[in-house]
């Protein structure tokens, strides 16, 4: 990798990478910044001075707080259910060859690559056809549906790299299949399951399109924001967005640092 041209090109690309990252981060910075803004009227769109009062009064708007709590509850349920179901699929697909595996793969691929709009509208079609009332339950059902494949893939990626001799050793030592799984395999899979669960949580808390179709009058955080854009977003939205952002980044960084020495597989 020598030669003037290549070094010059690499430096250019390095600068370019940072420019692109700056562009990616720009709207996030705006969001964070305007959480500290002190607007006079109902509209938080020009900088009018620094304040911390929105951090103090972050939960002052009851409807917004309710929406955030609703989002958190749904995300936790989604993470747990999709985590359990996805781990089952991921483990089976990674561990065994079985009839139907290809079909399941295809179904998961379709669920991942289908447009959200189509998944949301088809769920609504089914709910209105069956006379099922949209609400928190249907939102959770939908969120589990679109996140379970992601969990499965993350877990499977770890399972295929498992050293099968571990299982054999455990069996030699007299452990049953069940014990082997819980005592030996599960702890090894745990970090992958954790990233799968966090991924499902993140997908759920961010979802707008599918929730819009399956939620009825239920307001989640993104839904509330969507409705409020028409009359001006209160700065509390920026504060909550900032808090979610910081929490997400911290969790990602911590889990990343913890897993690094083990050279964990992509997740």
């Amino acid at each position: 990798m020598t030669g003037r041209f290549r070094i010059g090109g690499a430096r250019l690309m390095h600068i370019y990478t940072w420019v692109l990252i700056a562009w990616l981060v720009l709207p996030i910075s705006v969001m964070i910044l305007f959480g500290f803004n002190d607007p006079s009227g109902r509209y938080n769109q020009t900088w009018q001075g620094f304040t911390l009062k929105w951090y103090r009064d972050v939960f002052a708007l009851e409807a917004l707080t309710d929406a955030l709590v609703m989002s958190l509850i749904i995300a936790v349920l989604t993470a747990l259910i999709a985590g359990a179901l996805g781990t089952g699929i991921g483990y089976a697909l990674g561990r065994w060859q079985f009839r139907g595996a290809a079909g399941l793969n295809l179904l998961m691929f379709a669920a991942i690559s289908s447009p959200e709009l189509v998944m949301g509208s088809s769920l609504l079609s089914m709910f209105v056809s069956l006379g099922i009332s949209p609400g928190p339950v249907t939102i959770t059902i939908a969120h589990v549906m679109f996140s379970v494949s992601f969990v499965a893939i993350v877990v499977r990626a770890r399972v295929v790299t498992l050293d099968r001799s571990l299982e054999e050793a455990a069996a030699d030592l007299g452990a049953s299949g069940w014990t082997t799984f819980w005592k030996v395999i599960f702890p090894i899979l745990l970090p992958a399951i954790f990233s799968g669960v966090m991924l499902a949580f993140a997908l759920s808390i961010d979802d707008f399109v599918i929730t819009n179709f399956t939620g009825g009058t239920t307001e989640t955080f993104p839904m509330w924001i969507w409705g409020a854009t028409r009359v001006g977003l209160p700065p509390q939205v920026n504060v909550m967005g900032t808090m979610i952002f910081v929490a997400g980044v911290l969790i990602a960084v911590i889990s990343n640092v913890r897993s690094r020495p083990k050279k964990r597989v992509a997740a």
Partner: protein
Amino acid sequence: MDRVKRTLAPYLLVLPGGLWLVVFFAVPMATMVSLSLQEGDVVNGFVFTGHWQNYVESLADYQTQLIRSLVYGAVTSFVLIVLAFPVAYWIAFYGGRRKATYLFLILLPFFVSFVLRTISWRMLLTDDGVLLHPLKEAGILPGDFQVLGSATAVIAGLVYSFLPFMVLPIYVALERIDPRVVEAARDLYASPVSSFTKVIFPLALPGVFAGVLMTFVPASSDYVNSELLGSSETTMIGQVIQSKFLSNSDYPSASALSFTLMAVLLVGIFVYARALGTEDVMKVAAR
């Protein structure tokens, strides 16, 4: 007995999740097809009559929006390849020990709600907003200059929203390349340009294709960007479907359009899956 348990094990593990996908992914699609062939209105109910004219009528009314969406999606994917390739290339070959950190930075937007990010752009780009107002004051731009409402604004929004989905698969493909292959190519071809076009780019192609699939589908079916950043001149098919479902309660023609969109994209998706397999996408999707 133990053997039976063994053979059953994968099925038992797969069953709950698989069933969930069938019941809440596959069955709804079928319901939507059924709904798209029904007639009636929301007050008196809809009845299945095999009314395929729903397709004819709604396509006659909204083919412009459908084609526009596919064009926006294609332009978005193309712009993304150009923007994302150098970044993925640099991280893959020059990222060194910081590769993971750079990828993490590229993924940062995902920690902010999609809707909130798009609203931030809207705020930045608004006619008298933080970006345009100073430029107008300084006389650099004419007073009636606007970005919002144009196709450019919508496509820029789409590009922003889906950039990481292009960087990651290209990166994964480039990462796979054995450095010795690259070196051999450099020895073989005199110019760096031809070693790039003849060796590196072809090897990165699966990643590019995966990226196209992962950006074209969500971009052409998106309605948040065109709703927040566009105008009535940039209406995309997603907005039409959305408002037919969630404003007019005109379920049959909404379903017909939604299924048409799905069918168009499905053709693309399955041609892709048949030709290139599903692994690249699945792998990146899991990141």
